[in-house]
């Protein structure tokens, strides 16, 4: 099972600092929305896919992670084709597709603690005005990154258990135990955070 979305490795993307990657990702997003030519965007999507592949992630895992979002992007593109034009649809498809792949590449090569440190640093100025507690926000983000894969794995387990008992796998029948188990865990995890003094300042 996988915990945390980063995969171990020593590729150029792994070695780049979290801050640099986040800044580049932001700039790439801005650039992608400024460009309108579908062929230029297609080239960007191919480069993004190449970067994602360069992280050394296994092909099946790489696909599993982005398929849901890419499918949504495809639906948006189809809607654009129906209501606007083919050129517009292709532009949307490649633009959002490239962005998803770039974000996946950054996620796959950045450890949770690096993300958390970066978020804490980013929010420090706001902390001075009393808006947020930077450490809390970064802890929240870290927790999401840490436990989302675990919740997905549990979803798989529950589905399997349903099948093993010969029950039909209905979304609701899987979701209810999933939510209950997740809330129970959340309770323990919240307690553990207190017990270990993560929030003490």
């Amino acid at each position, binding site marked *: 099972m996988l915990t945390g979305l980063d995969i171990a490795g020593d590729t150029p993307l792994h070695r780049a600092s979290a801050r640099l990657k986040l800044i580049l990702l932001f700039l790439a997003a801005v650039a992608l929305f400024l460009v309108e030519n579908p062929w230029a965007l297609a080239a960007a999507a191919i480069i993004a896919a190449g970067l994602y592949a360069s992280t050394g992630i296994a092909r099946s895992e790489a696909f599993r992670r982005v398929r849901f979002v890419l499918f949504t992007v495809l639906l948006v593109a189809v809607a654009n084709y129906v209501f606007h034009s083919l050129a517009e649809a292709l532009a949307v498809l490649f633009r959002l597709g490239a962005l998803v792949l770039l974000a996946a590449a950054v996620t796959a090569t950045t*450890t*949770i603690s690096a993300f958390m440190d970066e978020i804490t640093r980013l929010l420090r100025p706001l902390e001075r005005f009393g808006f947020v507690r930077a*450490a809390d926000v970064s802890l929240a983000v870290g927790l999401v990154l840490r436990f989302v894969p675990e919740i997905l794995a549990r979803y798989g387990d529950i589905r399997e258990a349903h099948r093993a008992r010969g029950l039909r796998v209905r979304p609701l029948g899987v979701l209810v135990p999933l939510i209950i188990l997740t809330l129970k865990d959340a309770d*323990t995890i919240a307690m553990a955070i207190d*017990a270990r*003094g993560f929030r003490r300042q």
Partner: protein
Amino acid sequence: MDIVFSGASVSFAGRPALHPLSLRLCERRIGIIGLNGSGKTTFARLINGLLRPTAGQVTVGGLDTVKDEAAVRGRAGFIFQNPQHQMILPVLSEDIAFGLKNRGLSKEEISARTEAVLERFRITHLAGRRIHELSGGETQLAAIASVLVTGPDVLILDEPTNQLDLKNRRLIEKTIADLPEQAIVITHDLPLLDGFDRVLLFHEGRLEADASPSEAVRAYRGIVGC
């Protein structure tokens, strides 16, 4: 360190989980036994303020677990029944270091302490491993290391050998026996209690026996009827 219960009790939604209890714990090795649901975890959680007494008071080293919650947490470390849940970051060394952040330590100090605690429990080779890939025994050692790195005076362990095979059970038993820190151990693993100073037996939310390991275990067998 002195842990004092003064008429402390806990109810969940009006149902008593722990009846009023007054006692003082200062021994180095304290065991807690009893059937499932007898109130062991509830009792243990009172000690580091994870749970507030519905009535009465609990103090640790003279500090009130409600009023001085943060300070009490620093003195009483807790190992959860499922130690996976208390590891927040996916890689062991990261998780241990994370526990030391927000404490005004320098980066060098944090990594020196992390290395020292890994060495202390002979798990330096696991530093870069993912918590999820660790075996049951390794996870338990990792959790103990991640809590003791912050220097609590007393360690509370909730069924630490529960899901372990015989070999790992022996390893954790020995690790606990060798701890210089005071330890309070909830367990169903009765041999673990050998050499303990004092054992508390809970039954249906009441303290049923407070005695030497052999006497408490005898009372426990009396309850079960075998």
